[in-house]
């Protein structure tokens, strides 16, 4: 039973990690590329870490909490780094597929 749960978690995690990197390689502009790794890869690594926590909790006596630390750190830092990357890209005026909004002018829009 635990074996099946572990296998499912590991497979899900590996597939999501792969999909995240596939998005990074295949999508067409930087702002869409930002989605792949920051969402899918975080979820994938999260699944793998849960699998590891279950595995070591079952195998050894007591609950294994090392993984929770890594998960927490990764889940806190992933949005921060994504935000900083988007900000840097906007600062450098990286090309986007979507039309950029017009800069603010003094005349109000009708």
């Amino acid at each position, binding site marked *: 039973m635990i074996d099946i749960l572990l296998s499912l978690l590991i497979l899900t995690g590996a597939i999501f990690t792969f999909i*995240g990197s596939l998005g990074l390689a295949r999508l067409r502009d930087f702002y869409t590329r930002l989605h792949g790794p920051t969402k899918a890869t975080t979820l994938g690594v999260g699944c793998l870490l849960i699998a590891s926590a279950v595995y070591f909790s079952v195998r050894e006596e007591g609950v294994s909490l090392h993984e929770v630390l890594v998960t927490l750190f990764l889940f806190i830092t992933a949005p921060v780094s994504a935000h900083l990357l988007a900000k840097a890209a906007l600062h*450098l005026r990286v090309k986007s597929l979507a039309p950029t909004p017009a800069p603010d002018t003094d005349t109000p829009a009708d």
Partner: protein
Amino acid sequence: MLSTVIPIAYALVSLAFLLSFWRLLRGPDAPDRILALDTLYVNTIALLVLLGIHLGSAIYFEAALLIAMMGFVGTVALCKYLLRGDIIE
């Protein structure tokens, strides 16, 4: 069951490594390359966790934690450099 799933997971994570490495080499702009490096360190954590389950050893988590912290600091420093032209002002 676990012994058949782990090699498949290794293969998928290794393919993810290759795809991010391709983006690192190809990436048209600097933010693309930083994003590729960011993905590479997250993939490294995934690979280390898999290795820990495969070998049944809990030593690799400390390495994973260190890589998570250093990778985040590296990403922030590179972004800061692109934004301000300087890291510590």
